[in-house]
């Protein structure tokens, strides 16, 4: 089945220790997204890739970086995690919408990050 896979499902890191979360997809979608979701809150878009074009949200901290080496993979790097970065990180994909169209997003199961 075509899907969005996130590894690991649970990640524990220490305050200030860099961590990388990974996402892969078999849907061959050209748009990939990273969201941060804290308990009982809306998923907050951090950035997205439209093919290789990187689009950063204005309020995404510099501490968060992303890489997309090819269509299938995307990584989220947190350079110096703080306690406030503990959250669920969701990866999603979509087909690029036709002009004026829409984009149903397909989500992975998420990676829950704990910062000690």
């Amino acid at each position, binding site marked *: 089945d075509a899907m969005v896979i996130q590894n690991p499902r649970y990640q524990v890191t220490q305050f200030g220790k860099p961590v990388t979360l990974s996402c892969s997809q078999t849907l061959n979608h050209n748009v990939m997204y990273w969201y941060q979701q804290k308990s009982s809150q809306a998923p907050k878009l951090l950035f*997205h890739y439209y093919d290789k074009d990187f689009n950063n949200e204005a309020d995404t901290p510099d501490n968060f970086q992303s890489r997309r080496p090819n269509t299938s993979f995307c990584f989220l790097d947190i350079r110096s995690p703080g306690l406030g970065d503990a959250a669920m990180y969701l990866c999603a994909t979509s087909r*690029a919408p036709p002009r004026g169209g829409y984009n149903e997003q397909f989500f992975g199961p998420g990676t829950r990050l704990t910062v000690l």
Partner: protein
Amino acid sequence: SQKIEQNSEALNIQEGKTATLTCNYTNYSPAYLQWYRQDPGRGPVFLLLIRENEKEKRKERLKVTFDTTLKQSLFHITASQPADSATYLCALGKNNDMRFGAGTRLTVKP
């Protein structure tokens, strides 16, 4: 700034009744509105999309309405079942720019 509000954090209803969830927005003119279901510890799953020029969409027991004058969408689940218990998120967008609400947690009691 753009704001998306879902009517309440939690909604409890009895099995068999119709659940109605509300999504209100301000300072935005979305081209479309989507509803997602999210179970605990999982990613959201797409349910329905409605475009700005559409008033209503149906899919099985689900119905969505979209009133761009009131800036509101209503999401209905008819003949609700305990398996419908989950958090339901609305999302508004234009092209690739889509923003989510915080969701309403629905509990359907047998």
